[in-house]
């Protein structure tokens, strides 16, 4: 959580400062330090994305039906798990949406777990990264809702009885707007709290005790990635479901 630059951020700042400046100027944002525009969480986010792309490129080149390797077994398990969740939560043709929710799962999982490795930092520990994922979820489930149900999607917001609409509309709008916020805060608070607990026990003693909390942090990372995926699926399932009249 320090303000020092990690080595990867330093690398990006040394060699890729100009493109970042150009992008920031495009959106009219000014970096706090104009010479070194990269901040840690953006750099770590890009690193996580790179790791995922490279890993899956390797995986894809090695796929085989006859002799599946260990990596293939592992990711087949992950995919089967995601597909099973989609079948259970979204139900009928839920498998179409595994691509989006599963990608979020992999990204959040890698982002959470990279913080355990020394000299790296979880990008999900900073609110903008989970907020980006949550906004993506928000946009996707609303767009899918309109795509699947057309104008009938608006009926989700008006409640079951017509004359209750003035009461239900604000409630539904607020609850829908609260979804990305709660997704964001849940993920980033869990990550910050896990890190803080380890830090507090490190300040207390260096003797073996912090390891327990790092193990707990790894467990929480897995659970939070899973929950992010499940909530995404629940929201998509709620939006694309056809109401029976």
């Amino acid at each position, binding site marked *: 959580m320090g303000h020092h630059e990690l080595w990867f951020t330093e690398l990006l700042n040394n060699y890729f400062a100009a493109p970042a400046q150009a992008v920031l100027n495009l959106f009219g944002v000014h970096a706090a330090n104009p010479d070194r525009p990269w901040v840690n969480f953006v750099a770590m986010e890009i690193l996580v994305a790179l790791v995922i792309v490279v890993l899956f490129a390797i995986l894809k080149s090695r796929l085989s039906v006859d002799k599946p390797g260990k990596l293939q077994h592992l990711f087949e398990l992950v995919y089967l798990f995601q597909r099973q969740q989609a079948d259970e939560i979204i139900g009928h043709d839920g498998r179409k949406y595994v691509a989006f929710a599963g990608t979020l799962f992999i990204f959040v999982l890698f982002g959470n777990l990279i913080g355990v490795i020394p000299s790296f930092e979880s990008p999900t520990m900073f609110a903008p990264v989970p907020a980006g994922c949550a906004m993506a979820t928000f946009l996707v489930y609303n767009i899918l809702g309109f795509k699947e149900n057309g104008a009938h999607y608006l009926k989700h917001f008006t409640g079951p009885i017509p004359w209750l609409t003035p009461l239900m509309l604000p409630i539904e709008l607020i609850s829908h707007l609260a979804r990305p916020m*709660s997704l964001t805060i849940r993920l980033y608070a869990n990550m910050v709290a896990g890190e803080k607990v380890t830090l507090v026990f490190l300040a207390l003693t260096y003797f073996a005790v912090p390891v327990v909390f790092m193990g707990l942090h790894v467990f929480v990372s897995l659970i939070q990635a899973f929950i992010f995926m499940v909530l995404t699926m629940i929201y998509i399932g709620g939006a694309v479901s056809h109401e029976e009249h």
Partner: protein
Amino acid sequence: MKSKMFLVLLAMFVLASPVFAQETAASADRPFITITSGIAMALASGLCALAQGKALGSSAEAIARNPGAGNVIRGALILGLAFIESLALFTFVVIAAKF
């Protein structure tokens, strides 16, 4: 055996000394922030513990009654525990924002 335990405890205590040297002067001008955030966190984590205990207790009961449904119940339990825990963490975020 006992002396070994004593040595370990002594080592832990000596290593712990940095924590006594540190003083947080961040909110010296607003003393009530410290008190209220302590009480808020205590309330949040205490009630969160009660809720998690209730969830854990009833799911253990359910698994004992019907071990066949164990996997489904365990999945729902872990999901529920994470949701309950995130409520305590919302309090933590509010404190961190105000501190």
